[in-house]
């Protein structure tokens, strides 16, 4: 089954607002698919930019997606969100990128 044991990093500017919301939405999707993540962590961009390569998937607001270009080159999947609270959007995008099936 896809998605098991992956490490997710949820990032926003301050690590206290939208990243928390996105983390809650992400956890909802993971529960729905019975996926046990290896790690789900939320943090500010300043921390995320340096630790991104240690994760499998980065979830962030769409305006921050371009900050993870280096991690993406190393194979980290970046999931940009239009609505950080939307579990359906996360679900669709995780499916499109083949992280869940």
């Amino acid at each position, binding site marked *: 089954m896809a998605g098991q044991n992956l490490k997710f990093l949820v990032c*926003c*500017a*301050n*690590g*206290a*607002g*939208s990243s*928390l*919301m996105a983390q*809650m*939405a992400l956890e909802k999707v993971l529960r729905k698919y019975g996926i046990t993540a290896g790690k789900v962590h939320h943090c*500010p*961009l300043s921390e995320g930019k340096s630790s991104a390569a240690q994760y499998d998937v980065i979830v962030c*607001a769409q*305006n*921050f997606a371009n900050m993870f270009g280096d991690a993406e080159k190393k194979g980290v999947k970046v999931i940009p969100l*239009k*609505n*950080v*609270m*939307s*579990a359906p959007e996360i679900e669709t995008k995780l499916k499109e990128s083949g992280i869940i099936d």
Partner: protein
Amino acid sequence: MIRVGGNGLLREFVEKNHVKFAESAKDWKDAIRMSCETLEADGTVEENYKEEIIACVEKYGPYIVIAPNIAMPHSQEGAHGVHKTEIAFMKLQKPVSFEPGNPEMDAQLFFTLASCNPDQHLDNMSRLSEMLCNEQVVEELAKAETMPDLLKIQEQYLD
């Protein structure tokens, strides 16, 4: 998260007087300053907080527009001049633009965050997220004009 007695966020806004209705804002900075007024009034945040939020948006872009029509002004957890962990609500009749030429970044509903207690903040965010995931509530909030309107939405959708 399971809570007995439903999600009382709107009632909490009303009881704490963390509610502001206004016609319009001059620009997004003005809107952020206005959205902090009720938090300043009861000492939740000091006057520097709104300028810190504005500085964050200037640095990172309009990321506080978290969904269409919804802005969540905030700085970081434990920011200087924040004394309580609260959320304040503001509604503008006329949406304000956070990014010229991009109507997707217009906002009318403001949920301004103040946090100095991580656990309480997490609970607040979980309730806010739960409430805003209900599209009917968001639609109704965009029509609300008074505190009693908020209480009606609370009773109808959240209690």
